């Protein structure tokens, strides 16, 4: 039986960076993966959804310009095959990376015993240290189990090759609204059903409002406080009854109602690794230690927020700990989160409520962005906005929340600002290129300081 200094179980964002980092530190590393390298993110999550949204966004932005004539037609099959090739490219990149660092990639499902990982079909390997990066799988609803033909989860939907005429999305979280955005723009008639009273129920209300308004404007039907009552599967479609809507035929149904950790039947109990009620592995948030000596966990399997970039950093910390660096710790103050709708929504740090709940004397300043030339005049966003949350006494930035084109790109500056302990003055005095969306950070900081140069200051806020 081959023995490794470190075995990483799971080849997603919580796994492969751990293998790379440990190899850089000189450890002898194996990585076990039962599906494709890159995990949920590369194969079924971040990458294919953002690939789908890319042409959809271009088409929609063009359609908004009255002087653009003619019509473009997206060949759905060609699009889905391109998405596939994008995914394969990124997954192959992970494979090349691991090979480049001499990481032994073992294919198959892992079961774990103390000191040994048994891999289905590939035999057993020994380990001194272990990183568990098992990730999550899509949750399902009784009666709406994915069949890969009509009823889909975020994995099987990528097998679609014929464009659905009408599509039902069950679940109004970020996966649901991203798919709704893409599909509506490709000409699919989309309906979203959400149990709670708004889309993106875990996010700030003004984000929900922006997205609901935009999706409705693009023809998406939104039913909140509703649920699927009954499903009848037919040959190539299903008849679904949604509360308050009645019965309707749909060619495709995407179920996006949550995630379940991949912690069942892996041998974790016997190993002594503790799970929480939802089945996520309990770790020390800073060290990623599970409590079992030498066993670390990273990525989504450690519980929310389920984000690839958080997994990247956790993986690095787990690897550095496994390699003996006791100064390594996950201590990020700012974990950004993005929803790639139109406009994009991005948030980092604390909301006003969170800051106050934490005992900070915090304030929030909100800036409508329509008067930033890049946002309003050029990209045509009227409802875009930015909010900064700060500590009143030190004026340190605590949070930044933005709905705007390219919000996914500008949020990183806010993350750096929070990590560096930057204040409103620091943001206001940093020169931001004109014209850009990033000017939002400077402008909202100036407004909070009551000396905006592009907004008319009135008591209690900004107007232009």
């Amino acid at each position, binding site marked *: 039986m081959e023995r490794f200094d470190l075995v990483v179980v799971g080849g997603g964002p919580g796994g492969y960076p751990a293998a790379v980092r440990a190899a850089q530190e000189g450890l002898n590393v194996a990585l076990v993966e039962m599906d494709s390298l890159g995990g949920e993110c590369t194969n079924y999550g971040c990458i294919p959804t953002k690939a789908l949204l890319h042409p959809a966004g271009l088409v929609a932005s063009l359609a908004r310009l009255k002087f653009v004539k003619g019509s473009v037609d997206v060949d759905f099959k060609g699009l889905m095959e391109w998405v596939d090739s994008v995914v394969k490219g990124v997954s192959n990149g992970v494979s090349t990376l691991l090979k480049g660092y001499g990481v032994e990639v073992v294919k198959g499902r892992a079961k774990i015993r103390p000191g040994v990982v048994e891999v289905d079909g590939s035999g057993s390997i020994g380990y001194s240290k272990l990183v568990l990066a098992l990730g999550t799988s899509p949750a399902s609803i009784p009666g709406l189990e994915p069949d890969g033909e009509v009823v889909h989860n975020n994995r099987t939907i990528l097998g679609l090759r014929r464009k659905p005429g009408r599509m039902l999305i069950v679940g109004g979280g970020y996966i649901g609204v991203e798919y709704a955005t893409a599909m509506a723009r490709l000409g699919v008639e989309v309906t979203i059903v959400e149990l709670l009273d708004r889309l993106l129920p875990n996010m700030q209300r003004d984000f929900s409002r922006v997205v609901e308004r935009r999706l409705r404007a693009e023809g998406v039907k939104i039913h909140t406080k509703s649920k699927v009552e009954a499903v009848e599967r037919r040959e190539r479609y299903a008849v679904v009854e949604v509360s308050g809507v009645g019965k309707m035929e749909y060619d495709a149904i995407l179920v996006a109602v949550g995630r379940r950790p991949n912690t069942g039947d892996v041998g974790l109990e016997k190993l002594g690794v503790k799970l929480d009620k939802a089945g996520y592995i309990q770790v020390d948030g800073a060290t990623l230690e599970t409590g079992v000596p030498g066993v670390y966990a990273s990525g989504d399997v450690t519980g929310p927020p389920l984000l690839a970039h958080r997994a990247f950093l956790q993986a690095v910390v787990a690897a550095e700990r496994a390699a003996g660096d006791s100064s390594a710790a996950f201590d990020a103050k700012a974990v950004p989160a993005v929803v790639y709708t139109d406009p994009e929504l991005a948030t980092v740090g604390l909301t006003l409520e969170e800051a106050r709940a934490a005992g900070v004397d915090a304030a929030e300043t909100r800036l409508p962005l329509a008067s930033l030339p890049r946002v309003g005049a050029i990209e045509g966003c009227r409802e875009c906005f930015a909010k900064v949350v700060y500590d009143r006494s030190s004026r340190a930035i605590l949070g930044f929340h933005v709905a705007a084109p390219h919000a996914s790109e500008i949020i990183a500056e806010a993350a750096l600002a929070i990590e560096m302990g930057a*204040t409103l003055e620091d943001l206001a005095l940093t020169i931001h290129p004109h014209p850009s969306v990033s000017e939002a950070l400077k402008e909202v900081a100036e407004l909070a300081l009551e000396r905006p140069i592009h907004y008319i200051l009135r008591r209690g806020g900004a107007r232009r």
Partner: protein
Amino acid sequence: PPPQAAPAILVRAPPRVRRLARQLGVDLARVRGTGPRGAITEDDVRRAAAMLATAPKPEA
């Protein structure tokens, strides 16, 4: 002894600290930073200003 003047671009002080230094008449090139890797903090500037205030003035 006062630390040697650093080249201006290597003075690592955020914009708000630079503004404070101007307000208090402190030359940042002569302040030793106590922040990470020698970054200059507001406290460093205030300390330097306090020292300026108490130090004997050199003969003109």
